[in-house]
C-alpha cells in the first residue's frame, strides 16, 4: 500500500513539475518532471509489477493533470455575433469522393500496412511468436500513419501510387526473399 502511495505521489510530482515548467517557461523543470515521471514508472512497477505498473504510470497522469488544468482556467467574453450556419454541401459527387476515401482507408491502406508490417517484422531477429507480436503492434500504427499521410497530402493520385509501390515491394519481399 505504501509503495502505491509513493508511486502515486511521484506521478503527481511529475505533473506538478511539468506544470511549473509550463507556467514559468523553464526547461529545467520540464527535464526534472520527465525524470520524476520515469521514477514514477519504476515506482509503479515496484508496487504493482512492471506489466501493471507501466499501464498505471502511463495512464494515471491523465487523471492527475485536471487539478492543474482547473487552476489555470480562464473565462472568455460572450461573442457579440453568432455566425450563421453554413449550408450543407450534399451532392452525388461528394458522396462518391467520400466512398472512394473510405475504400482507400479501409481496404488499400489495410493491405499495404499488413504486407509492409509483415515484410519488416518477419526480418526481426526473434522467434516467430515475437515476429508475429511485433506485426500486431506495428500494423495499426503504420496503418494510422498512412491514413494521416493520405488525408494530409493534396495530391491523392501520387499518394495512391506510392502505396501501390510500397505494397508491391513488400509483397515481393514476402514472396521471394527467404526468411
Amino acid at each position: 500500500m505504501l509503495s502505491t502511495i509513493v508511486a502515486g505521489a511521484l506521478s503527481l510530482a511529475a505533473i506538478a513539475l511539468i506544470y511549473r515548467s509550463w507556467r514559468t517557461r523553464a526547461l529545467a523543470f520540464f527535464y526534472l518532471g520527465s525524470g520524476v515521471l520515469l521514477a514514477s514508472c519504476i515506482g509503479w512497477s515496484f508496487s504493482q509489477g512492471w506489466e501493471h505498473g507501466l499501464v498505471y504510470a502511463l495512464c494515471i497522469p491523465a487523471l492527475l493533470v485536471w487539478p492543474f488544468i482547473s487552476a489555470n482556467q480562464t473565462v472568455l467574453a460572450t461573442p457579440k455575433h453568432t455566425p450563421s450556419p453554413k449550408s450543407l454541401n450534399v451532392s452525388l459527387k461528394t458522396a462518391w469522393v467520400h466512398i472512394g476515401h473510405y475504400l482507400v482507408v479501409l481496404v488499400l491502406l489495410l493491405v499495404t500496412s499488413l504486407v509492409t508490417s509483415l515484410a519488416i517484422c518477419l526480418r526481426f531477429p526473434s522467434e516467430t511468436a515475437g515476429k508475429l507480436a511485433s506485426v500486431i503492434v506495428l500494423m495499426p500504427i503504420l496503418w494510422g500513419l498512412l491514413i494521416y499521410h493520405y488525408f494530409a497530402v493534396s495530391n491523392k493520385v501520387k499518394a495512391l501510387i506510392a502505396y501501390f509501390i510500397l505494397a508491391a515491394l513488400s509483397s515481393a519481399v514476402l514472396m521471394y526473399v527467404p526468411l
Partner: protein
Amino acid sequence: MCFSGTVAVFHQEFERWEQPHIPEMKSIAPEMVDKAMNAFLQKHPEQTDHLFVVFPTSGIPRFVVENDDKAYFADSNGNLLEVERSPFTKMMVDLHLYLNLPHAWGMILVSAMGAIICTLVVTGMVAHKRISKDAFRLRRGGNGQQYTIDLHNRFGLWAAPFHLIIGVTGAYFGLAGLLIVLVSSLYYGGDRDAVVAEIFTPDPVMGQPYQQPQLSRAFAQMADIAPNHEPIFLTVHEAYSDDQFIEIYAKAPGKMIYSENYRFDSAGNFIGTGGYEDGHWGKQLVYAMYRLHFGDFAGLSSKILYFILGVMLTVLCISGTEIWLQKKANPPVLTRVWQGIVWGSIGALALTALVSLATDTGLVSVFWALVLLNSLLSVFIDKCDKRFWLVSSGICVLSLLVSYTFVHGASAFSMAALQLNIPMLAYVMWSFYRGRSIKPHQESLNQS
C-alpha cells in the same frame, strides 16, 4: 464504439446485475465441482465438444457449470440452481466487438476503428501546433467553442498513452485473423493451425480410452501446483473422445496475460502448463491483449481507471465531431442528428436493457430501431436538441431502474445490483441537472 466499450468494461458486473438473486461465494470446495457437473450432465446428457466450470474467483463470484449451449448456476454445495441468463450483456458486448454485424465483417470493421484511433492520436499530436503551449489551458465561456476545443485537446494529449493502448489492442482482435491467413498461405502451406500454434500452445495428443473426467481431482491439485494463481474457469476439451483433456485457466499474479493454463488428463493427472507465464515475450504480448483492452487486470481499481479513461476517449470522439460542426456554424439538422445519436444511444441502451428484463430475443433490433428512431426524430423535430436527448436519456435510465426494481424486488438492493444501480441513479440526477443548466445561447446555437 467508445461508449459501448466504456460500458463493456463492466460486462462482468452487468452479468451479475442481470440475475442479482443468484447466491455469491468467494471459493468452492473441490469435491463440489464433480457434484455440480454430474448434476448438470444428468440434465443435459447430449454430446458436446466442451464442458466448462466457471469458478467464483473468475471475477464473477458465482459458480457455473455449462456445455457449449447451456449454462447453470450452482450453489456452494454443488446443487444446480437455474439457467444463466445475460441477454443484455451479450448484446452489449456483441455491439462493442462487432457493432452487431455478422462477426467476420463486424470484427474487421471494428478493428479498423482501432487503427483509426491510432491515426487520431498521431494526427492530434502532429496537427495541433500549440499542443504544448496550451497543455494546461482551459478556456470557458464565450460561445463554448473554445471550451470544446480545449477539452478535446487536453483529453487527446494527456490520455494519449491510453488511446494508443486501446487502438493497438482493439485492432488486434479482427486483424489477427487476416494475419494468420496471410502468414499461413505464405509460409505454412495454408495450415492456419500451425501459425496459431506459434503463439497459442497446441492441444496435447492424449489417445487414452474415454473416461468420465475427474474434475475435482484436477481442481484440488491447483492449491499445490499454483497456490497464488486464482482459477478462472475449467474446460474439458474434446469431451467424450479419446483426446479428452482438462485445462484450468488461472490468473497469473502481476502479469497481463489472460491466464496460465494447467492441463490434466481425464483421470485428473497433471500433464503440464500452456507455457504462457514464462513463455516467449511475443507469446505473452499477444495473450495480454484481452486484459490490456478491457482493463480487467487488477480487479475493480483497473476497471474504474479504464472506465474514466474510456469516458475521456468517448468525449474526445464526440467533441471532435462537435468542433467540426461548430466550424460549420452548427448546421441545424446535422447538429441535432449528432446529438440524437450521442445522447440518444444512452437512452436506447437503457431501453434495450429494460426490454431484456422481459425477453432474451430481438435486443439487437430494439437497440438499432431506437437509434434509427432517434435520428429520424432529430431530423424532423426541431425540439429534439441536446437538452431533449440528455433529459430523455435520464428518463430512460430512470425507467430502467424502476422496472428493474419492480422485476427483481428485494434483489434490486443486493450488492450485485447496487454496484450498477447507484451509478445509474447518479447519471439520472446528473442528466436532469445538466439538461436544466444548458445555457439558452448554446441551445439557440444548436437551433439556429
